[in-house]
């Protein structure tokens, strides 16, 4: 249902959409049924000349069943939603896949700062690329993000990822995403937590790039004096990966 409005751009977007659909259809089914029955009763048992209204206390077994049966059926639906929610929540928020890349995201009134790991792929080094309101990522790459807020609460919302994560001052909140290569291009990022006067203007752009495009972008944004160290950095990264595989 949702993918017709906003494409699915992350590995877990389909799970969120499925959960969304299940909730919508289950709740929608009961909504239509209950209101249909309600309206039916309104017309079927409307005031008629010569018919006296009945007062029903709802104490007989049969009358109670009219409440209890739908009650348990709805509870059953709740359990289905709950179990699904548990799995999706675990996949999106609890589980932390081994990252290929990391990115630091800092929210402030009313801008996003993104610290990309740069060519060495390691966050917090000299060749990090800091940008305002522009996040550049490689499709098909597992990212881990470090989300911070400097002043008040914000929320990092990426509609195509179906990702929404609050940022809280004084805390670093970790999360992950992996962009699908079907969404190469430019997308929205929006603050989704009321954060003051210009909350509505606190948007940013997400650039989902192919590995080649991303490498180009990194090269264009790395100062020349840091570029010479790239070979050394690649070697250390390879040995790090060897250690990980071994």
């Amino acid at each position, binding site marked *: 249902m949702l993918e017709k409005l906003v494409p699915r751009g992350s590995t877990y977007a389909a799970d969120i959409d499925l959960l969304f659909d299940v909730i919508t259809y289950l709740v929608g089914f009961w909504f239509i049924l209950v209101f249909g029955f309600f309206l039916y009763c309104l017309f079927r048992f409307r005031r008629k000349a010569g018919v006296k209204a009945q007062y029903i206390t709802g104490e007989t077994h049969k009358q109670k069943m009219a409440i209890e049966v739908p009650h348990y059926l709805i509870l059953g639906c709740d359990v289905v939603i709950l179990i699904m929610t548990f799995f999706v929540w675990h996949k999106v928020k609890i589980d932390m896949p081994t990252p290929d890349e990391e990115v630091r995201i*800092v929210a*402030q009134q009313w*801008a996003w*700062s993104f610290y990309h790991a740069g060519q060495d792929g390691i966050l917090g080094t000299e060749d990090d690329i800091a940008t*305002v309101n522009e996040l550049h990522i490689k499709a098909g790459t597992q990212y881990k993000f470090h989300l911070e807020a400097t002043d008040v609460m914000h929320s990092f919302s990426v509609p195509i990822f179906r990702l929404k994560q609050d940022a809280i001052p004084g805390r670093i909140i970790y999360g992950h995403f992996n962009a699908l290569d079907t969404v190469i291009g430019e997308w929205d990022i929006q603050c989704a937590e009321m954060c003051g*006067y*210009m909350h509505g*203007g*606190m948007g940013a752009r997400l650039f989902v790039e192919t590995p080649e495009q991303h490498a180009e972008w990194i090269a264009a944004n790395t100062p020349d004096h840091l570029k010479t160290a790239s070979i050394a950095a690649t070697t250390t990264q390879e040995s790090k990966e060897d250690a990980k595989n071994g």
Partner: protein
Amino acid sequence: MKLKTTSRSSIVLKLAFCASLFLVATVSSQADERGKQLYKNCIACHGAEAEGNKAFKAPALAALSEKYLVAQLTKYKEGHRGMDVRDVAGLQMAPMTQTLSGPEDIAAVAKYIASLESTPKEATLDGDPEKGKTAYATCAACHGADAAGNDLLNSPSLLHQYDWYTLAQLKNFKEGIRGTHPSDITGSQMRPMAMLLADEQAMKDIVAYIQTLSN
């Protein structure tokens, strides 16, 4: 008959002249109204009299010229200022320019701000105005011996400004937080000037001297 025509056309001309005056007056007063209306978005931080507010790191604006205000608002809107991750206050200002839809709005709000009355601000830093006076000679070339600024050189007035703000901007220029965007021509003129100042104390001295010019 001929005379009559002349007088008639002169009346028409006079009427047209009056009408055009009226039109100009209406249009410009509409622009003034628009400026006042737009400024309501700025009040939360900069105050009703554009007096600024330290709690929000918001500078006083009332003493700045219309031209300078237009230039800075345009820079913010186009991302030439307030787009450095270290510029916390600038990042906060930049999205505010979204409330201005284009050059007309920027001109209107700048005109309104420039029409407001400015007041001297109390000194809060421990600079030595005597030392600052000597160093200020360099600044005087553009900002004037009286620090009133010069629109022809795109240099802002430094009067009636908070010392903490002027200090913060000097630091921003020196550290390359402000004046480094390739399109920020006037900022890049100021940057090497700020780099002449050896340390924070030298900046405070100059600011302390500028503060004495306000009174």
